[in-house]
């Protein structure tokens, strides 16, 4: 298991956001975390990436403890987090947003190569490379946010609701890209989604959170076929 979270409890002030959460994701697998609003999905991601401190519990990444390590240090250990709501900086250009992702490597040659790689994945970003990010459409911004994360050459990718506010066709395209990247770059991915069906379809593993607790873990296809999950999260 490359990512191992056990008995994680996180509070927002006095409110318990997640309680005793344990998840394990093997290398190269895509895990979808689904659940309704307020289930603690975002909190879980923010805790793994170091933005939020857990009250108790442990987190291991590639055999090392990562509790208490700052996000800027975790990036250097291969953990990239695309936070909720099109995580780009609107005032910067597309190129600058991408360069940002590779900035910690301090190697402009590698950075340029990574930009070429991202542009080959998202040709639309190449067309808009000099534009400010606030001129992009919602889908393009999401591509840029994922592109920035790829620039860091991550091994663990944390994605928070990449489908939020996007047209269905664009959502499908983004999900397919996430699936392709997972396979081609041998990434380990945690995908938090409200769009449970879309996420489970591309995932290897499904984790259902409810009110801060893990209520189901299984193969993604098994969850899709589970009548209880279908009724509660897939809407039919």
């Amino acid at each position, binding site marked *: 298991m490359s990512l191992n979270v056990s008995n994680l409890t996180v509070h927002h002030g006095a409110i318990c956001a997640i309680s005793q959460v344990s998840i394990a994701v093997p290398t190269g697998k895509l895990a979808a975390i689904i659940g309704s609003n307020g289930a603690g999905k975002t909190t879980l991601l923010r805790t793994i990436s170091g933005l939020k401190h857990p009250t108790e519990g442990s987190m291991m990444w590639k055999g090392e403890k990562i509790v208490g390590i700052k996000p800027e240090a975790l990036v250097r250990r291969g953990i990239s987090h695309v936070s909720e709501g099109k995580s780009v*900086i609107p005032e910067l250009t597309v190129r600058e947003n991408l360069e940002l992702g590779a900035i910690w490597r301090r190697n402009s040659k590698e950075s340029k190569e990574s930009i070429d790689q991202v542009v080959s994945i998202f040709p639309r970003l190449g067309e808009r490379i000099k534009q400010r990010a606030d001129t992009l459409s919602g889908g393009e911004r999401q591509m840029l946010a994922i592109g920035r994360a790829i620039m860091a050459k991550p091994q663990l990718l944390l994605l928070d609701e990449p489908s939020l506010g996007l047209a269905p066709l664009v959502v499908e395209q983004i999900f397919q890209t996430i699936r392709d990247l997972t396979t081609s770059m041998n990434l380990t991915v945690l995908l938090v989604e409200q769009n449970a069906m879309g996420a489970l379809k591309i995932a290897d593993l499904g984790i259902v959170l409810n009110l801060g607790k893990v209520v189901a873990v299984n193969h993604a296809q098994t969850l899709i076929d589970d009548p209880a999950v279908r009724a509660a999260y897939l809407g039919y």
Partner: protein
Amino acid sequence: MDLVNTFLIGITSGTIYGLMAISIVLVWRSTRIVNFGVSGMALLSTYFGYEAMTRLESFWIGLAVAMIGGAVVGALVEILLIRLLEKHKSTGPIASVAPIIATLGLASLIRATAAMIWGGQDVRILAPVSNDGFTINGTTLVFSPLKLLILVTVLVLMLILSIIFQKTNIGLSLRASAYSPEIARLSGIKVNWVRTLGWALAGAAGAVAGMFETVNGNGALSPYSIESFLLLVIGFIAAVIGGLDSLIGAVIGGLVLGLMIAFVLMYVSSGLFFIAPFIILIIVLFIRPQGLFGAKAARRA
């Protein structure tokens, strides 16, 4: 001739005000703090420049020492004062006011310390070139070799700063950390140190403003000189006119103020020196409340 003369004088003092405004904007962008300590920091670094200049008999070494000293002072203030305040941050109205009050206290502290070390008397900073005006066709201008030198030096420094901001990774880190600390951290930027760097750059910019404002006046420097007070007030107005968030805005704000003050003094009344900047501020804020270069809507924190 008068017109050109007034224009050049206005531009020269405008660039100095612009530097001061840059110092204020850099601090605002990196820590969202309105730094009233900026005049104190500039004063202290100008004394550093004075010490180096008298020992080594070169204005330029003095200027360099002032800049380095200013950068160190800025960094130390951020590390020792601002971080501490951030760590013990309370909630409610005090939280946003505390750092501002602290910077006010800092200005007084530096002023009093400077008075203890260098005394309340004037010390003199000698200009590298003459401040006697150029003579063209028998008429002597107020615009002098010194003013020309100040103008060119400040413009060069501003150019260097803008290249740092637009073309280097350090500049990208500074901008990213200002716009979105969270995305900057998730990109691996050590935002804490970038903040310190922002304060250091602000200290260096304030130092140059302090040195040039002193020699552009009569060269006299004292802890209670009117120059440092003026720099604070006019630098602030320039920063606010420029939108507080924008470096270009700070420069333009400084130039607008410098020019307007020069023209008001020349063509209206020299008694308006202290009033003119405020009138300009109020007019700008009436027409464009967000400042000339400010973003219309406040950014979400």
